[in-house]
């Protein structure tokens, strides 16, 4: 059984090399990243040798790996068919042999191997002496086994949920902390480390509580063995093994249940107020109502708004954290925040996906399409304007210069108008199908359309920046004037300017879209849905 599932996993991996060019490229890139992970982790762990905090740093790395094993399968569920017990439920397997098989299949592949090789860096960085080396190898084996058991238990427990709409929503939301973590590690940590705020000693405190977590047990067992405390080392390994047994048992229970439990998709929720809001306000209001409901109910839309907030904050974060603060960078945040509202909503047909046929069969005239684009902009503006302005005010308050919030406001309003107009224009002239890819529950540009995506991103970003420039100049020129002038004149003028830009975008986009509705429809039909 184990051999069969391992062969299945290997066959699936090898098939990737014989399938489409996209799958082949994806497989090769994934393997390269796995090799980089193995080498990078090995070198990082090896470099801790001789440091007083090496055991704490090792425990942190082990914990990060366990976290990765926990998150990654949830993100790619539905792509790796060996993760879903329901695919094997039809076969006459006993739970025990299924467990053994799934465990072996989990440990097969480039990424599990990269984990083992990378973590073996502890044999250089933390272990010393023969006993230390032996315990290090055992600890790495147990650590990987713990990761697999934990990951399998969680995915099996969530299997029916993850097959459901709510599960897919949950997977989409996990993008937000990952992006926030990415921004934290790329924007905040390097600056803090450069200023000496984060050093190896910063991890000392982790030891007190992390040593009792399974990854910590593995790391501390190596140190105990290296320091000549074999009893304590093996006691820790025993405790870790016990945790693995507990997770294994829980996994068996979850698997037994998952194989005979109904799909939660049949337990549907009801929505409150089934009437379409704003529907009495003509076609523009009707389209705005549909977009408004989607901003609330579609997890992808909610994720986009959260990402806009994160990006707006991240643009300024690195400049606001150091000793030499530059509050003026908040103005850049205003431009980026507004631009990303447009960037995330360009390519309307591709993002709407196949349901766009319903709109395409009803709307063809330029007049109807103007209402369509302006309705969409209305819904996005109602959320986007207060969100980006609020984040800018928050950044200004964090910088200790609340006045910069007042200066950022007009830039947001003008930028938002430009960004929405440009997103309409790109939706009409540069549409492309969206696809689902392994590793992310979010939709991405379909294979071969990356250039379209890059074009619309850079075009919207550059266009927004250029369009916002007069307002930025105005804001800088009136920086020393009273708040009455800045709020009373700059804000309404910028809003009117932004409105005019959005209106121009809507008119141009509607004229362009009216002549190519069949093409837009085909783009939508070829797109995947979240």
């Amino acid at each position, binding site marked *: 059984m184990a051999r069969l599932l391992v062969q299945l996993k290997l066959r699936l991996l090898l098939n990737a090399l014989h399938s489409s060019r996209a799958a082949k490229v994806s497989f090769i890139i994934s393997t390269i990243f796995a090799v980089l992970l193995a080498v990078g982790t090995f070198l990082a762990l090896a470099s801790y040798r001789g440091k007083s905090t090496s055991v704490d740093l090792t425990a942190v790395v082990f914990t990060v790996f366990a976290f990765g094993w926990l998150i990654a399968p949830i993100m790619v569920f539905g792509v790796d068919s060996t993760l879903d017990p329901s695919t094997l439920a039809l076969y006459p397997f006993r739970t025990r042999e299924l467990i053994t098989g799934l465990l072996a299949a989990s440990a097969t592949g480039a990424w599990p191997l990269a984990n083992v090789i990378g973590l073996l860096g502890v044999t250089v960085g933390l272990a010393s002496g023969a006993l230390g080396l032996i315990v290090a190898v055992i600890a790495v084996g147990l650590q990987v086994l713990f990761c697999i058991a934990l990951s399998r238990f969680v995915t099996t427990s969530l299997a029916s949920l993850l097959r459901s709409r709510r599960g897919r929503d949950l997977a989409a939301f996990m993008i937000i902390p990952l992006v926030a973590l990415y921004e934290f590690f790329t924007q905040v940590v390097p600056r803090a480390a450069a200023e000496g705020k984060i050093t190896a000693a910063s991890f000392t405190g982790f030891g007190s509580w992390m040593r009792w977590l399974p990854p910590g047990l593995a790391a501390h067992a190596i140190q105990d063995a290296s320091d000549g405390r074999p009893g304590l080392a093996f006691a820790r390994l025993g405790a870790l093994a016990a945790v693995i047994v507990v997770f294994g048992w829980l996994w068996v229970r979850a698997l037994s249940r998952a194989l005979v439990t109904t799909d939660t998709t049949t337990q549907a929720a009801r929505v409150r107020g089934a009437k379409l809001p704003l529907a009495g306000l003509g076609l523009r209001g009707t389209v705005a109502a549909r977009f408004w409901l989607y901003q609330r109910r579609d997890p992808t839309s909610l994720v986009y708004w959260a990402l806009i907030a994160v990006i707006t904050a991240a643009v300024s974060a690195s400049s606001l954290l150091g000793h030499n603060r530059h509050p003026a960078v908040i103005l850049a945040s205003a431009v980026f925040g507004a631009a990303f509202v447009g960037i995330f909503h360009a390519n309307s047909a591709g993002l709407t996906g196949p349901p766009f046929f319903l709109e*395409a*069969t009803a709307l063809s005239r330029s007049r109807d399409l103007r209402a369509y684009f302006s309705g969409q902009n209305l819904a996005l503006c109602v959320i986007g304007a207060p969100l980006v302005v609020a984040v800018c005010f928050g950044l200004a308050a964090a910088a200790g210069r609340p006045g910069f919030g007042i200066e950022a406001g007009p830039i947001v309003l003008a930028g938002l108008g430009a960004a929405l107009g440009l997103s309409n224009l790109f939706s009409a002239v540069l549409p492309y199908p969206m696809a689902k890819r392994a590793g992310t529950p979010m939709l991405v540009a379909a294979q071969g359309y990356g250039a379209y995506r890059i074009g619309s991103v850079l075009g919207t970003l550059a266009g927004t920046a250029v369009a916002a420039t007069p307002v930025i100049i105005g804001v800088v020129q009136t920086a020393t004037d009273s708040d009455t002038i800045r709020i009373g004149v700059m804000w309404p003028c910028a809003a009117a300017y932004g409105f005019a830009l959005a209106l121009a975008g809507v008119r141009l986009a509607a004229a362009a879209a009216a002549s190519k509705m069949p093409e837009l429809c085909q783009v939508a039909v070829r797109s995947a849905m979240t």
Partner: protein
Amino acid sequence: MNNESAPGIPSATALPRYQPETGGLAVAVRGLWKKFGDKEAVAGIDLEIAAGSLAGLVGPNGAGKTTSLSMMTGLLRPDGGQVLVNGLDVWADPPAAKAIMGVVPAEVRLFERLSGEELLEYSGRLRGLLAAEARSRAAQLLDVLDLTEDANRLVADYSTGMRKKAALGCALIHNPSMLFLDEPLEGVDPVSADVIRRLLTRFVASGSTVLFSSHVMELVEQVCDHVSIIDKGKIVVSGTTDQVRGGKTLQRAFIDLVGPRAHDEEVLSWLGSSSS
């Protein structure tokens, strides 16, 4: 029914029912042609459907049914040919033609995050109905389609049959004179299929026209008064159901025309309880 339009709404549904000028044809297709790369998906088809008929378009997988229907409904630009729906040229004046037709595509992908009632109302509003009228028609259609209990559930949580019924509701809400359906009963349970069948029969009885594609020969034979068989992008035969059947069952006539698969049963000698 109230076809009055709200300000700012396209007045498609306010158009009077078109009376065909020549020969009472609801659909007239001339030399419709489409090529994808080297593959000729639709190779110059001609088709005529009389107004007030319930017509079936049948053919094997990959025959060109969906491509043909997409071009007839203005959703896929043809490489050549002409499509007239109730006398309106679909590709010369797409908005006018779209206003008098309803479409249910094969793979029904609707706005998943709207409730069933919101979806039908949205569709009605897009088609120019006043809000109150759209709500009223949505409620009536949901009732007839047996979806009232699920009216405020998200479409994402609907079964295949419920989605097909909701899509049919969207296609009918503006009271089109021509309805195109691509595989309307694919994956639909018998009860839902019966609901859809009765609704289509009633729709045609009022003088409207339906053209649908299907694999289910029994259904086509049972409900259609006109059948066209398409194979390899060409209409092989077209006429009344009796003409196409030629005294046989439609299934038999279809297989005779399109050609059966090679028989390979003899290689499965191990199959069956009598074998070891």
